[in-house]
């Protein structure tokens, strides 16, 4: 990058980093991993800055989705992992005491990244199924089925204690 491009890139990051870290956090569930994800996406962005400088944010977001899902596909990542202790959430005899929001948030954290990514694209980014399919590189039918499975799994997780699926 030449100096002018670096300035443009710095201006873009300064203007959009708050929004981008929010998205990274929703995808990953913790600050450190979110920052790693965003850093990776920004680094990839610099190498293609000339081509995407008209709409760099769309590119960064797309890279973050792909990075997160591919990280999940990596052999180093278990799709479901045993956790030391169940996430802090309602037990059956304390249901009435626990905030619904907390239960749903814990369930979202417990979803595997691909399922979570579909929900983020559909309901956090509010994108139509066709655009979600384009970003994720799959068919609209796959987006529908993934969304359905994710919501079904969320409902199960909200109803019963989370033991096997972990955030990461």
């Amino acid at each position, binding site marked *: *990058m030449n100096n002018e491009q*670096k300035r443009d*890139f*710095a201006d873009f*990051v*300064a203007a959009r*980093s*708050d929004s981008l*870290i*929010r*998205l*990274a*956090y*929703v995808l990953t*569930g913790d*600050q*450190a*991993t*979110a*920052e*790693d994800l*965003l*850093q*990776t996406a*920004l*680094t990839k*962005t*610099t190498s293609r800055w000339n081509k995407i400088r008209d709409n760099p944010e769309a590119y960064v977001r797309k890279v973050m989705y792909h990075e997160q899902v591919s990280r999940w596909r990596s052999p180093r990542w278990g799709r479901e992992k045993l956790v030391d202790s169940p996430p802090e959430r309602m037990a059956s005899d304390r249901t009435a005491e626990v905030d*619904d*929001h907390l*239960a*749903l*948030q814990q*369930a*979202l*954290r417990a979803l595997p990244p691909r399922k979570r990514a579909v*929900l*983020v694209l*559909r*309901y*956090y980014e*509010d994108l139509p199924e066709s655009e979600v399919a384009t970003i994720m590189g799959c068919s609209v039918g796959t987006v529908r089925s993934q969304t359905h499975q994710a*919501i079904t799994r*969320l*409902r199960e997780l*909200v109803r019963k204690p989370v033991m096997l699926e972990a955030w990461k």
Partner: protein
Amino acid sequence: MNVDEKTIAAELRRLADASRPVNEQAMVARAVAGARRRRLTWSLAASAVAVAAGALIAVPLTLGTTTATPASGPAGLPANTSAQLQSVRDCMPLGGPVDGMDTRKRYPADADVKDFRELVVYRDDVGSTALVGSETGFVLCTPQKDKEAFPSSPVFTPWGSALPGDLDAGVSGPLTVDAYTTETDSNAMSDDDQSGGRYRVVAGRVAREVTRVEIDWADGRRTDAAVAGGFFIGRVPARVNADGKHLDTPAVTVTAYDQTGEVIDRRAEVPYAPLGPVSR
């Protein structure tokens, strides 16, 4: 509870609200430099310092890690104000840090005073001690009331205690203790002070989420360190052992807290150790 599009969207937004702003300048710098992860080591600006065979001098050790989270060192060095620049120059009258074995010699030879920043200062009723650092290492600076009698000895210690040192060196969690040593503050000398104006000093690096660092001096005293820009430092007057000859320097425990008051890292049983590189 009802789990539908509306509740999911609301919960995702609530989750996003838990994120914290990033250090955008550091991210830009790393992206341009080609770093893919925050924790990657910063490239060294300085050329590697020649490592000659030499005796082990000392190494500040940290034991008893209670938290292991991905971490990186401080994002970078702040700029000195003119007053800070003067303080750093006063601390390094030879124009750079000095050799722990011979404080009349500069060491490393290519470390220049202009590379050093006043990172964080602990002030008490008597005086102050500052952590002053460069991209590769640090010194401690304690302004004296009598510079002739008590000349400054800014002994260079590489970050991570091993040459060549960089800001991520030795970082394994949100809290890194880089120094537990003693400094002389001539402002504290008095007829009834048996320690000779000595202070026990603990300093190091912390992650951005650390807002408070507490030092347990293992003698009934606890103090909050000064924290700024990813660095911390604290000091207390040293006490003399029962033998009346030696300073009491038991191992200390250092604890890092986040803004909610939660403990996010702790280093227990950090032993006292003079400063300096592990090897040359």
